[in-house]
């Protein structure tokens, strides 16, 4: 196609060839899926969440379909930082584009140790600090609920990590704009709006909640309007880049997020239905921008706010 626009953009310390990023926890870690041939249209990828020590994740059902969406209660299953560095980083480095290590905000000591481990190895492009997972008992999300918690988390991470630091916010925070501002004030390079939305499901046949932890995180197209609203609010409150995440499932959604103020989007659950969605979003955006005479993604960012 001749009518294609260059989609490259610099966001939060990373140079992306496309504003479409694969969100954390939805893309296989297997090498095949991190080969460039699998990643057309993908500007960057977020790894599955990792913490200092291995976590088994939650028991019982972990996913449950909802109208136009999915609830999950995976619970940050991961094999720990040592194994991540040894087994996963070599795979991630083959992607031919930047990736972000989705780091679980644990205790201060654990996060410092995790970041030290990441600092010790070459070629880790960026960290996405996860202060927003609703699916664990040790209150990871607690860090993100209040601006003070967010500030403390970012302060700790910033003091250990000099590279690009993105902070993944929780839409459960009643003070989202203030939390985003706190992240900016403590030196975050970008904020991601946001993680999953707290929900639940009832198994009416068995007369009990579907999930063992009762609550679970909702994502997919159902949450798009909610996520779009948070992007709008947060974009108005900070001057660092905002990454839109929640329910993006076509190029129009991506365009809407960018117009609301996002500099890039993360795509999560929609990949469950289409592995080639990033390419389709990139192609759609680029063709449409050419038609609209918008040359460059930065010309689209915040267009709906002017």
């Amino acid at each position, binding site marked *: 196609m001749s009518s294609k626009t260059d989609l490259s953009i610099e966001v939060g310390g990373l140079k992306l060839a496309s504003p479409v990023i694969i969100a954390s926890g939805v893309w296989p870690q297997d090498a095949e*899926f991190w080969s460039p041939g699998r990643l057309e249209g993908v500007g960057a990828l977020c790894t599955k969440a990792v913490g200092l020590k291995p976590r*088994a*994740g939650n028991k019982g059902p972990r996913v449950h379909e*909802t109208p136009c969406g999915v609830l999950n209660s*995976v619970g940050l299953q991961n094999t720990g930082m040592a194994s991540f560095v040894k087994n996963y980083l070599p795979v991630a480095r083959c992607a031919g584009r930047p990736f972000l290590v989705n780091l679980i905000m644990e205790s201060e000591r654990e996060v410092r140790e995790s970041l030290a481990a990441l600092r010790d190895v070459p070629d880790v492009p960026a960290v996405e600090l996860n202060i927003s997972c609703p699916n664990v008992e040790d209150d990871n999300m607690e860090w993100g609920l209040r601006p003070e918690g967010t500030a403390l988390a970012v302060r700790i991470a910033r003091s250990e990590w000099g590279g690009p630091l993105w902070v993944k916010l929780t839409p459960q925070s009643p003070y989202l704009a203030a939390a985003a501002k706190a992240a900016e004030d403590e030196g975050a390079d970008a904020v991601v709006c946001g993680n999953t939305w707290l929900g639940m499901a009832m198994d009416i046949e068995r007369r009990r909640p579907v999930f063992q932890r009762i609550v679970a995180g909702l994502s997919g197209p159902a949450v798009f309007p909610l996520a779009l609203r948070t992007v709008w609010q947060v974009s108005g409150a900070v001057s660092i880049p905002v990454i839109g995440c929640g329910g993006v499932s076509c190029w129009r959604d991506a365009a809407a997020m960018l117009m609301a103020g996002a500099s890039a989007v993360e795509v999560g*659950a929609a990949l469950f*239905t289409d592995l080639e969605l990033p390419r389709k979003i990139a192609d759609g955006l680029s063709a449409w921008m050419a038609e609209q005479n918008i040359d460059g993604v930065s010309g689209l960012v915040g267009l709906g706010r002017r």
Partner: protein
Amino acid sequence: MSGEAARDHEARVAGARVLGDGTALLAVECGAVADSATPGQFVMVRAGSCGDPFLGRPLAVAEASGGIFKLAFRVVGRGTELLAAKRQGDTLTVRGPLGRGFFDRAGDTPARVFLAGGGVGAVPLVFAARRLGFARIAGATAGISGAGWEGFADWLKEAMPKVDLHSDDGSVGKAGTALDGLPRSLPPGAEIWACGPVGMLRALAARFPNDGDRIRVSLESRMACGVGGCLGCAVPTASGNRRACTDGPVFAAGEVLWDELED
């Protein structure tokens, strides 16, 4: 694992057949899946391209040849209901072929295999029976609940002529379960390949406690992605959580932690 990587395909329904009360058979034209699928592998199928129902439904490949693969399924909810309404010429989205099947293993395929299917769990065993060939099938047994399953039972008899059928209510075949059709002890060199509800597979594993590595079970977990990304399909095993969609769905019964597996 088969060489062909999992991808999403637009596919056309080549034929649809209602097998009676709530069971349907679909023939799907999709060379990418049909030409490389092996028994025990599955596909994630979506009836439409819109967002609802959102997720693909995992269904085992029942047969595959000449660019066409078949699915046989019970209508248990919205997804399968929409699939059962598909007619020749309609389109579907198909992700696959997925998972490690019965033949994707270290070591040789055994000389003799007993097949045991519970309910729609018999579906992947139909495909396995075809690939094994008559000489290697030591026995084939299936169990269904009974009334309402006649159409499925007829299809099974047609696809696996030697199948020893059982039903809970005794209305189809003998009264009893699939496990009643298995030998008391497993002859040397033989294996059991089984698929069905967790309760059945747990009972199977308990009945042959010393043969865990010779009993291979296909597990039906909840799945969102089917390709190993979401960790939604975790199966507790002796070596930690494994993914049913990529490390399985076929596991050795001896590695599964049956007490931790949800029914």
